[in-house]
């Protein structure tokens, strides 16, 4: 697996998210309270809400449009909602955020 450096961990607020543009749309990169990072598709499967604008709690995010909640580890929608967002490998090394380079070749969500 090869990795791409997309920025410093401090560039994302604690319990927050930023988006990263790719050729096939945006992905969201999340930083939890414990400084773990996750990368997922930025598009909610319900009505296309931008997940990087959602509230991050524990290892979950809530879509800002209609409050669908997704587990950032598995991508699965929580509770009664059914759906899944694509997840991508991401990690932090020496304060830099690295994401799996395969996001570059992904298909549109």
């Amino acid at each position, binding site marked *: 697996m*090869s990795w*791409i450096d*997309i*920025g410093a961990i401090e*560039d*994302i*607020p*604690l*319990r*927050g998210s*930023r*988006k*990263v*543009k*790719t*050729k096939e749309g*945006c992905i969201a*990169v999340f930083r*939890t*309270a*414990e*400084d*773990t990072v*996750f990368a997922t598709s930025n598009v909610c499967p319900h*009505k*296309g*809400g*931008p997940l990087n*604008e*959602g*509230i*991050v*709690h*524990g*290892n*979950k995010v*809530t879509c*800002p*449009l209609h*409050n669908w*909640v997704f587990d950032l*580890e598995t991508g699965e929608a929580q509770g009664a909602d059914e759906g899944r967002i694509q997840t991508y490998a991401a990690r932090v090394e020496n304060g830099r955020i690295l994401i799996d*380079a*395969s*996001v*570059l*070749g992904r298909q549109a969500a």
Partner: protein
Amino acid sequence: MKNLVIIGAGMAAGRLVEHVSEAGGWSITLFNAEPRGTYNRIMLSPVLSGEKTYEEIVTHDDAFYEEHGVTCRFGERVISIDRTAKTVTGENGTVPYDKLVIATGSDPFMIPLPGHDLDGVIAYRDLEDTETMMGLGEGHKAVVIGGGLLGLEAAAGMHARGVDVTVVHLMGHLMERQLDEAAGYLLRKELVGRGMKVLCSSNSKEILGENGKVKALMLDNGTELPCDLLVMAVGIRPSVKLAQEAGLATGKGIHVDGQMITSDEDVLAIGECIEFDGALFGLVAPLYDQAKVAAATLAGDEATFVNRETATKLKVTGCDLFSAGDFADGEDREDIVFRDPSRGVYKRLVLQDDKLIGAVMYGDTADGGWFHGLIKDKTDISEMRDTLIFGPAFQGGGALDPMAAVAALPADAEICGCNGICKGRIVEAIEGGATDLGAVQAETKASSSCGTCTGLVEQLLAVTLGDEFELPTAKPVCGCTDLTHEDVRRLIKSSELQSQEAVWQELGWKTRNGCHVCRPAINYYLLADWPVEYQDDPQSRFVNERKHANIQKDGTFSVVPRMWGGITTPDELRAIADAADKYNVPTVKVTGGQRIDLLGVKGEDLPAIWDDLTKAGMVSGHAYAKGLRTVKTCVGTDHCRFGTQDSTGLGILLEKKLWGSWTPHKVKLAVSGCPRNCAEATCKDVGIVCVDSGYEVGVGGAAGMDVKETEPLVKVATEEEAIEWTVAFIQIYRENAKYLDRPYKWIAKVGLDWVQEQLSDDAERARLVAAFELSQSIYQKDPWAERAKEDEARKFAPLADLSLEAAE
């Protein structure tokens, strides 16, 4: 006999000498720059606090070394190592070696702040430093930079000797390397409770001096902390100078292999000065392991050093904390959290693949050793998962008590704010025979006014009466807690909870940091009740309040600049038109609140369009906020032949007073110049209708999902009074309403009579106005102007743009 020279007589070296002399065969020479033998450096903190004496922490004194035939050269610095000639040269002469062990330890890191070389600026490393701190004396002031293990031990030790201590810590919570935020919160609470001052997220700027002696520490926000002694405890660096000069391979530390051999096969290194497999060492357990391996290597035996998990304990009497392993969140990891607010206990276990990999504990660390064992041994815990957090002694037991938070309150905690009734009085009444809510209300008046403390009174009934009282089911805030909004609000005030971590811990939250339902509510309650103490958290706000624009269904935003009282100018209209052109705004709409909405702006363009509007003199209209939206007006006496008062002018005054304030839900006002009511004031949250003799202030109107006419609050003669009553009403609503209750819903719960009674009291009305003004002194800032600045504007752009990168 072959010659063994050891440089440094610290803890690792002391242990090495023991092992080597046991095996025999070496003539040992021991150099130490400190003029003494080996003492247990990690016990300096108990010496500092007066719980031990120096004599008690000496591990290897002169007699020990003499007995073992070691030639001691204490107080003598080593000048150089000659690896070709195989000699070590000290200040008093040269010694040959067959094997050399470098154990030079580490040097404290001194931040090169201006003034760091002043007299009275010290590190915390050796006995001299400890004695300097011990000599400071009661009533003097000390500042400790660094809220890690060492810094806190220094601070607590000096505090125990009567010194007035302030800890300055760069990070957001104490001991961030060993503790998570929740445990860091409890530790800070304990230390502050003892009378120490603790400043987190604080950056030091300069050390101020007078006549060459330290006088104060200045922070980068301009705060000056006067002190007689300044202790820097921000970390240590391996002491590698000697090894480097001798040409040995070094990185952050002296490179060694698993046998503790450096790049020269006749030179070994152990302790805090080494780097092994990228790791540095600061705790004692691995140092002892290294001494053992080095002794085996010297004896020609096989041994390999393995870097194992180490646990941390803070040596501050009464602060019980423990951390071991890796406790960061991560993929495939799960948390088990246990909190007992009444005992100040927090425990968190981190699991991965049915194994325990990390543990953080505060308040009750009795099971720390057991958990540490599970981590080290990689024990499969799937069988005991459900009861794991209760430790090895768990014998089965009842479910956790949801009423622990109320049970834990002291007797003088105020439960009913309206009538000033404390917990003790209510419990007394219950024990005296008031066994239901009505009886408690009759007996004590608690919960008989606004009623928001009803839930707490009922919980007190349940706690006091046990099974005899059946608790009515109240709706909790969300799945993270069993408490209602009203309970949480009251507890935030009465328990003086001033941070999110305090709420999670003291009220026994069931999740690590809430969810999208409770976080915005708690953030609002904290900033409304503690405007000065609490720092607003954008990450706990809904997207619109974080972006200061309304998100639309396609992910674009709408931008609405404020038009005071609905009045605008040709220049403002031109600036709005120019912005609409420049940013290709697809829809421009006049709103019901007498202003102009630019719909369909891209998120990335927000800072730029705000910058343009800001330059034209406009501020955010907060059209997205749970806060003041608009003050709608008619033209009043300025133009209208029926107008009785200057309704436009009053509307502008009110809007200038109230804008920027956060409220439980959105708030809309209107001022009509006569009873014809062209501004539709009678369906607003606050609506003022002007009449010949003055101003009729009505509240609690609605024209949304419910339609409701305002109810008259008061009639006043002057504009000043109309403003005063309006501000006081907004503030009492801010202080008491449940998050997301518009005023009409809140009034339906507490009753207009109660609101009128409160506001009719001149002193209370003045208090409310003053409280509102204090809050505005912090929150009445234009969010657009702040975010149009370059640093802030960058956050609106994508973190990275990979759209031009080629796929593999």
